[in-house]
């Protein structure tokens, strides 16, 4: 019923009573001594890539006196859904299945997806509530002073936060009081959320991780320094995802790690010559090793993530008949993950990580020609020409390999547009990428279904060899194989149209305009 009217922070507070800190000299209002007090343990949850924060949502778990509440709030602080912890304390990190069925899980589902929710901040709040009294000694508002000691991701203490809640029927009086309070020296605006305040107390801010390449290049920057910036950002992303991959918090850590590796490899291939002599050649085999290390687990992840849809698509067979295949995939993943984790904990990986950063730091300091704008324009133009050349050569009778090659060329063009994206107008860049993305999706579907089809045969052979494949399961797998072929044919049929759109004169002009602007 009562919502917070205004929030403040009090600077220079030394743990005194709110009534001592918040004095309203000459006012008709008085602030009482704390009437109620208590302490709360607060925990904020989000996905590693801040999906909730980016959607304007905050998920907070508050524990006090043996009870635990989980509350989802929107941008304006309004409560959207809550769970009162009837199922006991929840264990984090965890996927959505940690939460009981209900409105909270329903609201989080589309935002969180396959990612796990993990603690992003923890704090202990000491809360004191005082009353604001008018000249009749009637309470017109409540003031809570929240002193937060942050315990994670680092230790720190936040300045006291003061929240004023008007009592029903007393909003005008409470607003007058709030205006007076805002004018008190040392009292400042406190509209930041609890999570923002907690993170600010330890020098962090929400949303400080994204899988996107977040660098700000300037056109006249030396190409070597620009490439060092891009590659350092990729290394940061790669390293940020190692812990989550090793702990197997969710599948997307490995996915983001792989993308960072793939982008690094493409950058070395397409613009490695902008780095000092020998650097690209020295590290390319190492990143190939790292990429190969991650492939088997990711392939199994893709299968397992798609499993529910796959089982639901069966017409002749039943989902139960597919269960031995499901078991087989899970067992294989456990084995493959062991290899992956060993690799990520190896001296070879540690060396790669350290030496690569050293090489990039040295490169960033070097002053070389040409400018990044010239490098970007020439490499994007070349990659664009290659996509057009290879795409135009594809006919109805072309073998699958030629589509696979075209997919690689498309990826290279896409990566270049992303590496150098900050040089261009964001709207122009988005339009240039849009048609490329549509083409990539089609080629991706074509190749993924083919790879999955081939893998399915390998899995079937291995299951037979291990005597882990009942006939009914093999038949169900056969049905899935047939479904994959149908999807692949569909993608093949869509290709010509998608490529026509990409190769249209208007689309070609967009790419030329984009890089032309930057090179000027």
């Amino acid at each position: 019923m009562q919502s917070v009217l205004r929030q403040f922070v009090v600077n220079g507070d030394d743990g005194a009573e709110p009534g001592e800190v918040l004095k309203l000299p000459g006012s008709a209002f008085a602030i009482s001594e704390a009437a109620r007090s208590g302490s709360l343990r607060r925990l904020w949850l989000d996905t590693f890539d801040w999906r909730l924060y980016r959607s304007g949502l905050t998920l907070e778990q508050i524990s006090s006196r043996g009870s635990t509440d989980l509350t989802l709030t929107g941008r304006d602080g309004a409560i959207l859904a809550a769970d009162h912890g009837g199922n006991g304390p929840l264990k984090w990190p965890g996927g959505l299945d940690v939460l009981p069925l209900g409105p909270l899980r329903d609201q989080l589902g589309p935002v969180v997806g396959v990612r796990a929710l993990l603690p992003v901040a923890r704090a202990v709040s000491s809360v004191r509530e005082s009353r604001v009294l008018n000249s009749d000694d009637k309470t017109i508002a409540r003031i809570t002073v929240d002193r937060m000691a942050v315990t994670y991701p680092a230790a720190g203490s936040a300045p006291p936060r003061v929240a004023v809640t008007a009592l029903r029927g007393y909003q005008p009086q409470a607003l007058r009081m709030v205006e007076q309070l805002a004018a008190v020296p040392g009292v400042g605006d406190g509209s930041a959320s609890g999570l923002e305040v907690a993170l600010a107390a330890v020098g962090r801010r929400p949303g400080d991780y994204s899988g996107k390449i977040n660098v700000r290049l300037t056109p006249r920057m030396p190409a070597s320094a620009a490439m060092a910036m891009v590659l350092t950002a990729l290394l940061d992303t790669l390293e940020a995802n190692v812990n989550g991959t090793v702990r197997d918090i969710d599948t997307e850590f490995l996915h983001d790690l792989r993308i960072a590796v793939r982008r690094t490899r493409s950058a070395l291939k397409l613009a490695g010559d902008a780095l000092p002599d020998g650097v690209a050649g020295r590290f390319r085999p190492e990143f190939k090793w790292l990429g190969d290390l991650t492939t088997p687990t990711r392939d199994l992840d893709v299968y397992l993530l798609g499993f529910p849809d796959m089982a639901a698509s069966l017409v002749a067979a039943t989902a139960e008949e597919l269960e031995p295949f499901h078991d087989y995939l899970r067992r294989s993943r456990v084995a493959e993950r062991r290899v992956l984790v060993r690799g990520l904990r190896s001296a070879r990986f540690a060396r790669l990580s350290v030496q690569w950063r050293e090489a990039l730091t040295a490169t960033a300091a070097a002053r070389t020609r040409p400018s990044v704008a010239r490098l970007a324009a020439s490499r994007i133009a070349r990659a664009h020409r290659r996509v057009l050349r290879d795409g135009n050569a594809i006919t109805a009778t072309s073998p699958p390999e030629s589509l696979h090659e075209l997919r690689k060329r498309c990826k290279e063009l896409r990566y270049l547009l992303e590496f150098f994206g900050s040089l261009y107008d964001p709207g122009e860049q988005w339009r240039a990428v849009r048609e490329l993305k549509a083409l990539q999706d089609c080629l991706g579907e074509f190749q993924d279904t083919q790879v999955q089809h081939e893998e399915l045969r390998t899995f079937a052979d291995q299951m037979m060899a291990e005597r882990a494949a009942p006939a009914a399961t093999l038949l169900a797998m056969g049905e899935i194989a047939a479904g994959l072929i149908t999807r692949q044919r569909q993608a093949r049929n869509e290709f010509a149209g998608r490529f026509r759109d990409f190769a249209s004169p208007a689309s070609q002009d967009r790419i030329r305009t984009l890089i032309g602007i930057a090179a000027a």
Partner: protein
Amino acid sequence: MKTFATYNIKGGVGKTATAVNLSYLAAHEGYRTLLWDLDPQGAASFLFRIRPRVKGGGKALIRGKRPMDDAIKATDFDNLDLLPADFTYRNLDLVLDAAKKPSRRLGSLLAPLSTEYDVIFLDCPPGISLLSESVLHAADMLLVPLIPTTLSVRTLDQLTEFIGSFDGSRPAILAFFSMIDRRKRLHREIAEQLPVERDDVAAAAIPALSLIERMSVERAPVTAMAPRSAAARRYGELWQEARELSKLPDPPAADI
């Protein structure tokens, strides 16, 4: 939503003290509670330190020109709101007289509040009027304070007979002895005897205690300012009886 009204034709029998204390107890148990101070003297509003004033007066409320929501004020206690008194309430009979179905008007004004409140208390002015008739129709239960005298028992019978003449739903009646002076033999005898003989008289009774009179000095319910006192315990017993008799469901779980 259950509506309780404290009613007696006589004044000064403890209606307001009962409404104030029982509404506090209901709110304290977790019921979302509203107390409407219908008495133009505004004693209940005074006890909660709320100014007895409603913008547009009683006329605007009864005619529906001003939403009830706008006039409601929070008390200092969780879950307890008050619709303040206004001096214009002294003319409510005239306003009601001009309304359609005057005896049902209060009930229809309260109906939309059922999503917001679990319990409503109506603190009525003394006397028999169109307003009190409308209150009797709107209430699920009448809480009737009685001074332990033979005459007051007669008044209860008259009230019961009057309500018996209503068409449709009738409020339950729970009379209880109020302001019992233990030093008076007649008070003691009637207060002990009648609850045994009649099932519309509560076993709980409120003695005349100076602490109850102090409410007007402290400006708070005795159940809040001295929850362990004998006075608070008696009100507690009365509330339990009223709650059970009215079949009020358990309070809702704490709100988020």
